[in-house]
């Protein structure tokens, strides 16, 4: 049910999932930038369906047996062609022989363990040769982030984000309180940054990108001002935080508070937040 192009095209192969009509479909961005809709699976689900093999224009196809394989791969872009399979399940469907006409085989992988989510990063891609999304229950401990930072005799602020863990459609609520302002601030932004680190040891490669730049304040505040934060995460293409996936990669998210003064100097404070996926309520 999962393989999209594992065979060479001497014949047409099609796969249908037994629950294909009802299964949720989600968009997936391919390398060429196009988006396709793919079926969505979760860990511990049964993956079952049928596969049919039809030789082209009545030709016969010789084969050394037909098997279906479920792969979980991590692909490092800088190490092109090297796939690390963390999951590999195989079902033998047929013994070696020849196929003259369309032949259909049912298959089933039951309660498949798919520990990691599909992830498309800058340098790393985690894919099942089908798309997997795991839902996490809301974290039981979710404290707010509150911190006082500053530059001596120049700028003291206190900021607060209402949580440290946000789900993908969450809203960041908070405020920035100005304790001391001696510089002329022009504006203040809140950025969401994603830090993706791949490889391990000496080969560790870190890439950071800014996914959101959200203006919080326009103009120069004075001491005592408190500026509200309300940032909806839904418009941004976030993924859950991934920590040390199969020793291959990690994805972390940071909230970066940036103050810019009139001479375009930037003052910032970065704070990690955890992003998780909450089960759709629907």
């Amino acid at each position: 049910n999962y393989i999209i192009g594992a065979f060479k095209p001497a014949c047409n192969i099609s796969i249908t999932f037994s629950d294909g009509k009802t299964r949720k479909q989600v968009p997936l961005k391919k390398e060429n930038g196009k988006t396709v809709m793919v079926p969505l699976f979760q860990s511990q689900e049964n993956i079952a369906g049928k596969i049919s093999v039809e030789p082209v224009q009545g030709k016969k196809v010789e084969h050394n047996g037909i098997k279906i394989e479920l792969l979980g791969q991590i692909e490092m872009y800088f190490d092109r062609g090297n796939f690390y399979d963390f999951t590999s399940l195989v079902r033998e469907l047929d013994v070696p022989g020849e196929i003259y006409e369309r032949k259909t085989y049912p298959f089933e992988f039951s309660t498949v363990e798919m520990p990691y989510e599909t992830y498309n990063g800058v340098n790393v891609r985690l894919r099942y040769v089908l798309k997997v999304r795991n839902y996490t229950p809301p974290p039981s401990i979710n404290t707010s982030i509150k911190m006082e930072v500053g530059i001596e005799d120049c700028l003291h602020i206190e900021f607060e984000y209402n949580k440290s863990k946000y789900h993908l459609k969450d809203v960041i609520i908070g405020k920035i309180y100005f304790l001391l302002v001696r510089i002329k601030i022009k504006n203040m932004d809140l950025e969401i940054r994603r830090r993706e680190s791949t490889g391990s040891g000496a080969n560790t490669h870190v890439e950071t990108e800014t996914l959101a730049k959200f203006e919080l304040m326009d103009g120069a505040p004075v001491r005592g001002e408190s500026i509200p934060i309300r940032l909806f995460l839904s418009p941004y293409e976030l993924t859950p935080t991934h920590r040390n996936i199969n020793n291959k990669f990690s994805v972390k998210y940071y909230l970066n508070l940036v103050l810019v003064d009139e001479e375009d100097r930037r003052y910032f404070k970065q704070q990690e937040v955890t992003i998780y996926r909450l089960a759709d309520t629907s």
Partner: protein
Amino acid sequence: MMIPDGIEDEDKWLTAGIAGLQQNAFYMHRALDTNNLKDALKYSAQMLSELRTSRLSPHKYYELYMRAFDELRKLEMFFREETKRGCSTIELYELVQHAGNILPRLYLLCTVGSVYIKSKEAPAKDVLKDLVEMCRGIQHPVRGLFLRSYLSQVTKDKLPDIGSEYEGDADTVMDALEFVLQNFTEMNKLWVRMQHQGPAREKDKREKERNELRDLVGKNLHVLSQIEGVDLEMYRDTVLPRVLEQVVNCKDELAQYYLMDCIIQVFPDEYHLQTLEILLSACPQLQPAVDIKTMLSRLMERLSNYAASSAEVLPEFFHVEAFAKLSNAIGQVIEAQVDMPIVGAVTLYSSLLTFSLHVHPDRLDYVDQILGACVGKLSGKGKLEDSKATKQIVTLLSAPLEKYNDIETVLKLSNYPRFMEYLDDGTNKVMANVIIQSILKNKTCISTADKVEALFELIKGLIKDLDENLDDEFDEEDFNEEQSSVARLIQMLYNDDPEEMLKIICTVKKHILSGGTKRLPFTVPPLIFNSLKLVRNLQGQDESVSGDESSANPKKLFQLLNQTIEALSTVPASELALRLYLQCAEAANDSDLEPVAYEFFTQAYILYEEEISDSKAQVTAIHLIIGTLQRMHIFGVENRDTLTHKATGYSAKLLKKPDQCRAVYACSHLFWVEDHENNKDGERVLFCLKRALRIANAAQQMANATRGSSGSVMLFIEILNKYLYFFEKGNSHITLDSIQGLIELITTEMQSETVTPDPAADAFFASTLRYIQFQKDKGGAVAEKYEPIK
């Protein structure tokens, strides 16, 4: 060069801003037309991004803002329709917050917020609270002020006021209040902060710009005043203290003055009255440079008008002791602000006075108290130089006059004259004039010598020169006008009681005699006539009452008059004095005081002989003398002869023949007084007339010799008329023959070739002849008498 460049640049930026706005507005419209919410949000946000500029002055920024405002109205309509099409308002409310730039985001949020409240999907108070909180993100003063102004604008009809469709729970008014107060506070902070932005050298320009923006802030107070649910209690306990707290704490002069004034102007008078103490207690806490005087003046002005509006509200004024509170506050302000110019203090007192006059018209002591306080402030500063201050003082001092319309009330104010001391001469005069005009306007009769004394003390600026240096810019016209006023004032002084009236006259005399030569000609005559009025009154009274032991007797009065007129000799104003002497002589005649009358005549004659040298003046004078003398009937033969003889003598000595002629024939009347048989001397009448004829002849000859023309025919005709008069009165010395002769003489003269025709003479002669004819036609004795004349 710098400034024009700057302005040009600004215009350029504004044009660019408008262009950008319009372009995005165009795309937005297209999105609206096709119901494309996503694009509508995108382009509206881009459109609003034009408002992020820092390059425009508030004035130009406003222009841009107004355009955006109009576009946002369309967007709001679209949002409203969108919600009808099924898009939930809460979703919209979230959606607009995805915008990355804060300013467009907040404009959109306010716009959707307005729709949200209208949809009633959430309580108005929650939405308002959220909006006003979120707007904190704009800390740039100008942009923040406009954004919050927008917020105020779109929500002002959606406050959860009592009776409003958005009314909420029990505290609903409080919610509305909180919202407006918070927005007001934040706006004021931004506004005040504006002055610290940018280089110091542009401070003046910035203050000017700030001033342009003040109404954005003040609008909030107006909105507050419009909230139905704010009753007196709420105003006193919440609104006023909160607003004042902000006003005091912002420590900004411009804001404090403007906002205090706003408070005074936008809230109802009755609230001010009931919260006077709270409002006034804020005054000493304001910055020293704040123009508290104007502010308090306006407050008192408002309260005065309120008090004047209806008598029913007055008890409240008493109840809250408004006067004491205001008076107290003013005292504190003046004490606290040592540097306050004197005009400030005077303005304050002036306003307080107006207030007092409106609210406590019966409390003269208040008025005096205010004047006293103000004098206290002035004392030790010498004469005032500040023209604004003196102007203000005139207003201050005029107020009681205008109110009471009665100088007597004002004269009771002990501090009033003290005040006048501090005025410079010019102002003193102005003020004196105001006082006089008030008396004249109201026809106030000042009836005791004491009051007159006090009054003249007040107006002494007009009565005498206050200091020696006679002003260079002496304006004759003004002076004459002033003195005419004084003259009119003197005429107004009157008391029925002769004793008191005499005292009044003495007082006035004392004052005016010190007035100097320029004033006497104006002030003496009214005093003389006023005295003569008294003389006449005395005559009307019973003899026993005005006996000799009474000081107010005619004799005494005439002495006084004599002295007064004598004063004119210093001017000199002999012609005027002569007239007055004659006037007095006539009055003495009516009082049967021959010696007095004789004395006055003597004085007049002396003046004539010694002082009057101008021939024209002599002519006038001699006719006056003759006229007066003719009416005198108390003189004994001797006195009379002396005087008439003199008069005739003067007549014959006039310079010009025609004048001589006319005076002489006028003298004829001195010898023929009707109703006095012993005073009819036909012979001397004829003598006078003949003499006149002789002079006329001489005049004619002289005229013929020198000019070849003649004006003397006129004289002959005039003499003919005199003949006819005495003929008719039965003077037996006037014969028909002489009349006939005269007529013929005139006829011949008029037909003479040498004479240039004189239409006036022709007409006069024709009339005379017609009269004779008329008498003839009458019939009876008269006709008989005239019959022989041809």
